[in-house]
């Protein structure tokens, strides 16, 4: 991105040229990928023209003024439809911008379009999108992952230099791993959620996807900080892209939780991650074996909380104020028909589960129990930070799976096995490409850090990326 910024600054390239280049790539690859739900050609070109004007006058808003971006289609964009990949919001046009969109506009970033996702971000493959599945750029028979599959695939295919995704249980990191890009789920509250359509507000976070660690860091630096419109961002800290320093690796304590290297992990994935760990060790990092034994509860805890919060967050789609409506003789019938028709199968499944676990007589056994187990998981993570500065694991147990391969919902939920813990603990976690398997599918490595320790995480990721890709 620094290169693009340099080209813009030195007038070797214009924003219009950039946007046209990416639009051409979109044109070329979308038929195959289906990464985008909406392409805003007109809007992006208009924004690019304005950016070029500013550069001409030396009034550029930032070094990134005019470098375009793609947003996951659950991030509200004023005047540009925001579907959440759901039939119920197929024609919904927000009246306001999400705070992160305001931040991007302030920096001058043209919005190329909106990326595909599993409906309301519920899923791990974008197969639950009502706009069709997004295909993995590395293998036409495989998924791009999810729920931010469109964002990851668009970055991987060069449709956009970077993208925004959202992550509730792994929805940025898992598709980043499947598509061979970098994806960050920031510390809970570090990036405003205002205007980001809720799945589970106590777990949701917005984050960057990009080709390189540095690009992800740059995009994150634009996003991070307190937003008065999001009460949960009250003590968020801003983030500045650090000076990259390999010397930090020496003496760094890297936690290796044994539970993340056990049964179910594909040997090729394990091998790639172990190789990366070895590189760190060679540079002087200390590998610290440790245990995160509570991770066995992570998926069930996560599912209980997600379904409960989602059942409530998605109750507002009742056909009265916005969204599609299916008429009925009375209001309740209208609500039920609107929702029964408007929501896809997975969304309905989660609403049913969530309604059940919050219901009278079940709350203590399920929801409250899950919240308490969450405390256990949080405490487990906290004690890990006494032993390690960072924790490294595989991002996913396997590389990208085949479209249609996972028919059982419970099997699909296991895609988040290594990632959900970071959301439950509110900690930052990043997925970094660390190699490819024998089918040439990308493998992702996950780095986790304590709250607000993104910088250290980025340093390690930057170092690894350099070594792994032989980049100097």
């Amino acid at each position, binding site marked *: 991105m620094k290169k693009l910024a340099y080209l813009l600054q030195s007038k070797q390239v214009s924003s219009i040229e950039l946007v046209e280049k990416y639009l051409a790539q979109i044109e070329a690859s979308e038929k195959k990928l289906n990464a985008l739900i909406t392409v805003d050609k007109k809007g992006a070109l208009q924004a690019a023209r304005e950016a070029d004007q500013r550069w001409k006058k030396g009034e550029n808003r930032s070094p990134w003024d005019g470098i375009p971006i793609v947003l996951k289609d659950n991030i509200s964009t004023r005047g540009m439809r925001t579907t959440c990949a759901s039939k119920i919001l197929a024609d919904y046009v927000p009246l306001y911008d999400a705070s992160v969109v305001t931040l991007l506009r302030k920096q001058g970033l043209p919005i190329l379009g909106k990326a595909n996702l599993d409906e309301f971000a519920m899923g791990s493959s974008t197969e639950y999108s009502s706009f069709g599945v997004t295909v993995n750029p590395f293998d036409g028979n495989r998924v791009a992952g999810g729920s931010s599959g469109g964002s990851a695939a668009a970055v991987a295919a060069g449709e956009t230099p970077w993208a925004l995704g959202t992550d509730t249980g792994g929805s940025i990191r898992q598709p980043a791993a499947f598509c061979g890009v970098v994806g960050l789920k920031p510390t809970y509250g570090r990036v405003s959620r205002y205007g980001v359509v809720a799945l589970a507000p106590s777990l949701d976070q917005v984050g960057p996807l990009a080709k390189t660690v540095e690009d992800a860091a740059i995009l994150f630096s634009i996003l991070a900080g307190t937003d008065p419109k999001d009460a949960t961002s009250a003590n968020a800290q801003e983030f500045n892209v650090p000076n990259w320093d390999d010397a930090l690796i020496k003496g760094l304590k890297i936690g290796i939780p044994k539970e993340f290297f056990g049964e179910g992990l594909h040997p090729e994935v394990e091998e790639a991650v172990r190789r990366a760990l070895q590189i760190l060790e060679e540079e002087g990092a200390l590998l610290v074996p440790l245990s995160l034994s509570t991770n066995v509860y992570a998926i069930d805890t996560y599912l209980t909380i997600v379904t409960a919060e989602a059942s409530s967050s998605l109750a507002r789609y009742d056909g009265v*104020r916005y969204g599609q409506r299916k008429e009925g003789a009375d209001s309740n019938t209208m609500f039920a028909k609107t929702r029964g028709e408007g929501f896809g199968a997975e969304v309905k499944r989660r609403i049913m589960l969530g309604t059940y676990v919050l219901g009278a007589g079940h709350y203590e056994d399920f929801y409250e129990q899950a919240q308490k187990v969450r405390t256990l998981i949080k405490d487990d993570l906290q004690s890990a930070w006494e032993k390690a500065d960072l924790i490294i694991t595989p991002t996913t147990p396997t590389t990208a799976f085949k479209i249609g391969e996972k028919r059982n919902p419970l099997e699909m939920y296991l895609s988040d096995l290594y990632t959900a813990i970071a959301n439950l603990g509110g900690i930052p976690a990043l997925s970094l490409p660390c190699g490819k398997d024998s089918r040439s599918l990308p493998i992702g490595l996950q780095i986790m850090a304590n709250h607000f320790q993104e910088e250290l995480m980025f340093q390690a990721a930057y170092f690894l990326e350099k070594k792994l890709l032989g980049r100097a």
Partner: protein
Amino acid sequence: MSRKYDTVIGLEIHVALLTESKFLCSCSTEFGAPPNSHCCPICLGLPGSLPAINAKAVEYAVIAGSALNCVINPFSKFDRKNYFYPDLPKAYQITQDAYPICGPGYLDYYVQDKLERTKIVRIHLEEEAGKLIHSGESIIDSEYSLVDYNRAGIPLIEIVTAPDITAPEQARLFLEQLRLVMNYIQVSDTKMEEGSLRCDANISLKPKGSPVLGTKVEIKNLNSFRALERALEFEKERQREVLEQGGQIEQESRTWDERAGKTMTMRSKADAPDYRFFPDPNLPPLNLDPVWIENLKKSLPELPLERLHRLKDQDRLSHYEAAFLVNYPDFGDLFEKVKVTFPEPKAIVNLLMGDYARLAREHGHLNPVRLGELLQLLADEVINKNQGKDILEELFKTEEDSPAEIVEKRGWRMLSDAAQLRKVVEGILADNPDLVGRFRNGENKLFGFFIGQVMRATEGKADPEVVNNLLREELEGGRN
């Protein structure tokens, strides 16, 4: 009421807080705007919008809790109450379930001249729903309804009482006192007709003296003090009849139909909703500073009951007089101001409760200094009572002239100079020797005639007391 049963009543009162902006967004709370013109992504529940708590609403809730002698909880939480209804934009209401902002408290108030205490169980903060306008006469016979979200998101406190109240009239008096307290602390305009004060009531009967509560019925839609009392009277009788005929009371919600003058079933417990309360993940818990809470408590204004007792004890007013000044705080405040220049509480309250009250309702209040001056003239006997009335009416037209100036201009100054009046008296007696003779022979009623003659001769300005004395002296001095 039958002697066989005790009536048990508890109230749930919703009070809209008088903030400028809504509870969770910055839209205006102004009443009467065009429909759906005070709405934003937050109060419309647009996808992705998030709540941001209004500090003033929290402050007002703490003030209200303090005025109702409640425990203020530094730690409280916001929960979602999930249910579908067209006036509820997010299909959940942000409220406080498990950890409300105020814990137990009480309110003291008079029922006739007996001081009663009703316990407050809790007070919690929540958001208001939108407003529905039904196409038909009532919700039941309406083919469709129209929704206005201007009201959605206005801050409310819900005050829940213990089932301490034993009679419908007492319930009304409690609610009146509660309203007065809310007015005194200025957290709400408590306009029942605009819905900024609403009340639901729970009522049950139990055998006299029994410690076991009966099955309670909830009555909703009580939009006036009268409706509260009437609905409870109706429901008390209805329940008594059911019980006396050996029937059982069903736990249910009933609505009060003002026109029909009766309560009607809304829903039974069988279809009681399952609200699925859980902590709102978008809002961190409140952690209020105990020092801040203490300061708010200390800066509470004088409350109605304190004022009542002060007026009775210090100003020696009767309960009736004191209650008048307390219940009409504008009069109470005026009373205090007049007292500064004219420290005679009884005389002030007599003036305020008399013709003044009627005139002030029409024209608004007078300047307390002017009222002090008027009272002073009366006290100094510069003018008589009738003249006082005339001056009062004159003041309601214009307050430009002081009462003294009015007296001067109209030449209304009371004639109380004894020497001057003696001449008048002597003249009249000299002109009526027959009558004087008859009076002296015992025809006492003629005394009034002489007074009338003196008043006529002085154009009504004579001080009646002085005339009285002079006449007695002159007439009775010669009686033997």
